[in-house]
Protein backbone atom coordinates (compact mmCIF):
# COMPACT_ATOMS: atom_id res chain seq x y z
CA UNK A 1 0.00 0.00 0.00
CA UNK A 2 1.38 3.41 -0.98
CA UNK A 3 1.74 5.97 1.82
CA UNK A 4 -0.86 8.29 0.28
CA UNK A 5 -3.37 5.45 0.04
CA UNK A 6 -2.60 4.32 3.60
CA UNK A 7 -3.11 7.86 4.90
CA UNK A 8 -6.39 8.09 3.03
CA UNK A 9 -7.60 4.72 4.35
CA UNK A 10 -6.72 5.89 7.88
CA UNK A 11 -8.57 9.18 7.39
CA UNK A 12 -11.63 7.42 5.92
CA UNK A 13 -11.65 5.08 8.89
CA UNK A 14 -11.33 8.02 11.26
CA UNK A 15 -14.32 9.76 9.67
CA UNK A 16 -16.31 6.53 9.93
CA UNK A 17 -15.30 6.13 13.60
CA UNK A 18 -16.17 9.75 14.37
CA UNK A 19 -19.54 9.28 12.65
CA UNK A 20 -20.31 6.08 14.54
CA UNK A 21 -19.57 7.87 17.82
CA UNK A 22 -21.46 11.06 16.91
CA UNK A 23 -24.51 9.11 15.71
CA UNK A 24 -24.58 7.20 19.06
CA UNK A 25 -24.34 3.89 17.20
CA UNK A 26 -21.35 3.08 19.45
CA UNK A 27 -23.67 2.92 22.45
CA UNK A 28 -25.14 -0.58 22.94
CA UNK A 29 -28.04 0.93 24.90
CA UNK A 30 -29.06 3.01 21.86
CA UNK A 31 -28.75 0.02 19.52
CA UNK A 32 -30.90 -2.15 21.81
CA UNK A 33 -33.48 0.65 22.10
CA UNK A 34 -33.60 0.74 18.31
CA UNK A 35 -34.03 -3.03 18.09
CA UNK A 36 -36.86 -2.80 20.64
CA UNK A 37 -38.53 -0.04 18.56
CA UNK A 38 -38.18 2.52 21.34
CA UNK A 39 -35.97 4.87 19.35
CA UNK A 40 -35.78 4.57 15.59
CA UNK A 41 -33.10 7.21 15.13
CA UNK A 42 -30.53 4.69 13.93
CA UNK A 43 -32.71 4.04 10.89
CA UNK A 44 -31.69 7.52 9.74
CA UNK A 45 -28.03 6.68 10.32
CA UNK A 46 -28.27 3.50 8.24
CA UNK A 47 -30.42 5.19 5.59
CA UNK A 48 -28.08 8.18 5.35
CA UNK A 49 -25.03 5.93 5.10
CA UNK A 50 -26.64 3.85 2.36
CA UNK A 51 -27.80 6.92 0.41
CA UNK A 52 -24.42 8.66 0.35
CA UNK A 53 -22.56 5.44 -0.44
CA UNK A 54 -25.08 4.60 -3.17
CA UNK A 55 -24.33 7.89 -4.92
CA UNK A 56 -20.56 7.36 -4.61
CA UNK A 57 -20.72 3.76 -5.88
CA UNK A 58 -22.85 4.88 -8.84
CA UNK A 59 -21.17 8.11 -9.86
CA UNK A 60 -17.47 7.58 -9.17
CA UNK A 61 -16.89 4.80 -11.74
CA UNK A 62 -18.81 6.84 -14.36
CA UNK A 63 -17.05 10.12 -13.78
CA UNK A 64 -13.55 8.82 -13.20
CA UNK A 65 -11.48 6.26 -15.08
CA UNK A 66 -9.86 5.14 -11.84
CA UNK A 67 -9.79 6.15 -8.15
CA UNK A 68 -7.97 9.38 -7.22
CA UNK A 69 -5.05 7.56 -5.71
CA UNK A 70 -4.80 4.88 -8.37
CA UNK A 71 -5.84 1.24 -8.36
CA UNK A 72 -9.24 0.28 -9.62
CA UNK A 73 -12.83 0.48 -8.47
CA UNK A 74 -13.54 -2.83 -6.73
CA UNK A 75 -16.76 -4.71 -6.45
CA UNK A 76 -17.50 -7.05 -3.61
CA UNK A 77 -20.34 -9.29 -4.77
CA UNK A 78 -22.35 -11.03 -2.07
CA UNK A 79 -23.54 -14.54 -2.81
CA UNK A 80 -27.08 -15.80 -2.48
CA UNK A 81 -26.89 -18.94 -0.41
CA UNK A 82 -27.22 -20.68 2.92
CA UNK A 83 -23.96 -19.28 4.29
CA UNK A 84 -24.84 -15.65 3.58
CA UNK A 85 -28.41 -15.92 4.83
CA UNK A 86 -27.83 -18.36 7.70
CA UNK A 87 -24.81 -16.37 8.82
CA UNK A 88 -26.93 -13.22 8.78
CA UNK A 89 -29.52 -14.89 11.03
CA UNK A 90 -26.78 -15.91 13.48
CA UNK A 91 -25.17 -12.46 13.33
CA UNK A 92 -28.53 -10.87 14.22
CA UNK A 93 -28.87 -13.03 17.33
CA UNK A 94 -25.45 -11.90 18.55
CA UNK A 95 -26.17 -8.26 17.67
CA UNK A 96 -29.53 -8.37 19.46
CA UNK A 97 -27.94 -9.94 22.54
CA UNK A 98 -25.02 -7.52 22.87
CA UNK A 99 -26.11 -4.38 21.03
CA UNK A 100 -22.65 -4.36 19.47
CA UNK A 101 -21.65 -4.94 15.84
CA UNK A 102 -18.13 -4.89 14.34
CA UNK A 103 -17.68 -1.16 13.58
CA UNK A 104 -18.83 0.10 16.99
CA UNK A 105 -16.83 -2.63 18.78
CA UNK A 106 -13.64 -1.32 17.17
CA UNK A 107 -14.57 2.37 17.54
CA UNK A 108 -15.43 1.62 21.18
CA UNK A 109 -11.72 1.30 21.89
CA UNK A 110 -11.47 5.04 21.20
CA UNK A 111 -14.50 6.26 23.17
CA UNK A 112 -13.31 4.90 26.51
CA UNK A 113 -16.34 2.62 26.79
CA UNK A 114 -14.09 -0.20 27.98
CA UNK A 115 -16.61 -3.08 28.27
CA UNK A 116 -16.93 -2.94 24.47
CA UNK A 117 -13.47 -4.54 24.42
CA UNK A 118 -15.16 -7.67 25.78
CA UNK A 119 -17.53 -7.69 22.81
CA UNK A 120 -14.56 -7.07 20.50
CA UNK A 121 -12.76 -10.10 21.94
CA UNK A 122 -15.91 -12.14 21.36
CA UNK A 123 -16.12 -10.97 17.74
CA UNK A 124 -12.48 -11.85 17.06
CA UNK A 125 -12.91 -15.26 18.68
CA UNK A 126 -16.12 -15.93 16.75
CA UNK A 127 -14.32 -15.08 13.51
CA UNK A 128 -11.58 -17.56 14.42
CA UNK A 129 -14.00 -20.40 15.09
CA UNK A 130 -15.80 -19.66 11.83
CA UNK A 131 -12.61 -19.61 9.76
CA UNK A 132 -10.94 -22.54 11.51
CA UNK A 133 -13.83 -24.96 11.65
CA UNK A 134 -16.56 -23.66 9.31
CA UNK A 135 -14.53 -22.14 6.49
CA UNK A 136 -15.91 -24.42 3.80
CA UNK A 137 -14.06 -25.14 0.57
CA UNK A 138 -13.96 -21.74 -1.03
CA UNK A 139 -13.74 -18.67 1.20
Amino acid at each position, binding site marked *: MKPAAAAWVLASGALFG*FGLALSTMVRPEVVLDFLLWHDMGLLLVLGGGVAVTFV*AYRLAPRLMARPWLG*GEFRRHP*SEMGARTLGG*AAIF*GVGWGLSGVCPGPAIAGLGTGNWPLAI*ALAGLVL*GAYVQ*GRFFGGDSP
Partner: protein
Amino acid sequence: MSLLFVATGLVGGMSTVFTTVWSYFSRAPYFGAPRFLESRAWRLVYAAGLVIGAAAWLATLGVPEVTRVPMWQLAVGGFIAGFGARLSNGCTAGHGICGMASLQPPSMLAVAIFLATAMLTARAVRAFA
Protein backbone atom coordinates in the same frame (compact mmCIF):
# COMPACT_ATOMS: atom_id res chain seq x y z
CA MET B 1 -17.00 4.49 2.88
CA SER B 2 -17.75 6.87 0.04
CA LEU B 3 -14.42 8.64 0.50
CA LEU B 4 -12.62 5.32 0.75
CA PHE B 5 -14.16 4.16 -2.52
CA VAL B 6 -13.69 7.40 -4.48
CA ALA B 7 -10.02 7.68 -3.57
CA THR B 8 -8.90 4.05 -3.41
CA GLY B 9 -11.66 1.97 -4.99
CA LEU B 10 -11.85 -0.21 -1.88
CA VAL B 11 -15.16 -1.53 -0.52
CA GLY B 12 -15.01 -0.86 3.21
CA GLY B 13 -16.92 -3.45 5.19
CA MET B 14 -15.79 -3.94 8.77
CA SER B 15 -16.10 -7.57 9.86
CA THR B 16 -13.52 -9.03 7.44
CA VAL B 17 -10.72 -7.54 9.52
CA PHE B 18 -11.56 -10.07 12.27
CA THR B 19 -10.73 -12.85 9.80
CA THR B 20 -7.70 -11.18 8.24
CA VAL B 21 -5.98 -10.55 11.60
CA TRP B 22 -5.92 -14.31 12.09
CA SER B 23 -3.97 -14.67 8.84
CA TYR B 24 -0.99 -13.26 10.74
CA PHE B 25 -1.18 -15.93 13.45
CA SER B 26 -2.95 -19.02 12.15
CA ARG B 27 -1.92 -21.46 9.44
CA ALA B 28 -5.47 -22.73 8.95
CA PRO B 29 -6.00 -22.71 5.18
CA TYR B 30 -9.10 -20.51 5.27
CA PHE B 31 -7.18 -17.54 6.68
CA GLY B 32 -4.57 -17.82 3.92
CA ALA B 33 -7.02 -17.19 1.08
CA PRO B 34 -5.68 -14.59 -1.38
CA ARG B 35 -8.51 -12.13 -0.81
CA PHE B 36 -7.68 -12.04 2.91
CA LEU B 37 -3.92 -11.77 2.44
CA GLU B 38 -4.16 -8.97 -0.10
CA SER B 39 -6.57 -6.90 2.00
CA ARG B 40 -5.24 -7.50 5.51
CA ALA B 41 -2.93 -4.46 5.59
CA TRP B 42 -5.46 -1.81 4.60
CA ARG B 43 -8.13 -3.39 6.78
CA LEU B 44 -5.92 -2.98 9.85
CA VAL B 45 -5.20 0.65 8.92
CA TYR B 46 -8.94 1.24 8.42
CA ALA B 47 -9.67 -0.27 11.86
CA ALA B 48 -6.98 1.92 13.44
CA GLY B 49 -8.69 4.90 11.78
CA LEU B 50 -11.98 3.98 13.48
CA VAL B 51 -10.31 4.06 16.89
CA ILE B 52 -8.65 7.42 16.13
CA GLY B 53 -11.90 8.93 14.85
CA ALA B 54 -13.81 7.76 17.90
CA ALA B 55 -11.06 9.15 20.16
CA ALA B 56 -11.29 12.48 18.30
CA TRP B 57 -15.01 12.53 19.05
CA LEU B 58 -14.29 11.89 22.73
CA ALA B 59 -11.73 14.70 22.79
CA THR B 60 -14.11 17.23 21.19
CA LEU B 61 -17.85 16.64 21.40
CA GLY B 62 -17.96 13.37 23.26
CA VAL B 63 -19.15 12.41 26.69
CA PRO B 64 -17.44 9.40 28.29
CA GLU B 65 -19.75 6.52 29.09
CA VAL B 66 -19.45 2.97 30.34
CA THR B 67 -22.14 0.63 29.08
CA ARG B 68 -24.43 -1.15 31.53
CA VAL B 69 -25.16 -4.04 29.21
CA PRO B 70 -24.16 -7.14 31.24
CA MET B 71 -20.74 -8.53 30.42
CA TRP B 72 -22.00 -11.99 29.57
CA GLN B 73 -24.25 -10.45 26.90
CA LEU B 74 -21.30 -8.55 25.43
CA ALA B 75 -19.07 -11.63 25.45
CA VAL B 76 -21.57 -14.22 24.21
CA GLY B 77 -23.31 -11.80 21.83
CA GLY B 78 -19.95 -10.69 20.45
CA PHE B 79 -18.89 -14.27 19.83
CA ILE B 80 -22.15 -15.18 18.08
CA ALA B 81 -22.08 -11.97 16.02
CA GLY B 82 -18.46 -12.56 15.00
CA PHE B 83 -19.17 -16.11 13.92
CA GLY B 84 -22.34 -15.15 12.03
CA ALA B 85 -20.93 -12.07 10.31
CA ARG B 86 -17.96 -14.03 8.99
CA LEU B 87 -20.11 -16.97 7.88
CA SER B 88 -22.35 -14.47 6.10
CA ASN B 89 -19.32 -12.53 4.83
CA GLY B 90 -20.76 -9.23 5.99
CA CYS B 91 -22.22 -7.26 8.89
CA THR B 92 -24.14 -4.01 9.39
CA ALA B 93 -21.38 -2.24 7.44
CA GLY B 94 -20.61 -4.78 4.71
CA HIS B 95 -24.14 -5.94 3.90
CA GLY B 96 -25.98 -3.03 5.56
CA ILE B 97 -24.19 -0.16 3.86
CA CYS B 98 -21.85 -1.43 1.10
CA GLY B 99 -24.11 -4.27 -0.06
CA MET B 100 -27.32 -2.24 0.05
CA ALA B 101 -25.65 0.76 -1.59
CA SER B 102 -24.63 -1.46 -4.49
CA LEU B 103 -28.18 -2.90 -4.65
CA GLN B 104 -27.15 -6.52 -4.18
CA PRO B 105 -30.14 -8.80 -3.51
CA PRO B 106 -28.24 -11.22 -1.22
CA SER B 107 -27.13 -8.32 0.99
CA MET B 108 -30.65 -6.85 1.10
CA LEU B 109 -32.05 -10.19 2.17
CA ALA B 110 -29.23 -10.61 4.70
CA VAL B 111 -30.08 -7.19 6.22
CA ALA B 112 -33.78 -8.08 6.48
CA ILE B 113 -32.87 -11.36 8.16
CA PHE B 114 -30.39 -9.97 10.69
CA LEU B 115 -32.66 -7.07 11.59
CA ALA B 116 -35.46 -9.58 12.25
CA THR B 117 -33.38 -11.99 14.36
CA ALA B 118 -31.76 -9.08 16.24
CA MET B 119 -35.16 -7.57 17.08
CA LEU B 120 -36.51 -10.93 18.19
CA THR B 121 -33.43 -11.61 20.32
CA ALA B 122 -33.48 -8.17 21.95
CA ARG B 123 -37.17 -8.66 22.76
CA ALA B 124 -36.58 -12.14 24.19
CA VAL B 125 -33.71 -10.90 26.36
CA ARG B 126 -35.80 -8.01 27.64
CA ALA B 127 -38.65 -10.39 28.46
CA PHE B 128 -36.60 -12.95 30.36
CA ALA B 129 -33.77 -10.94 31.88
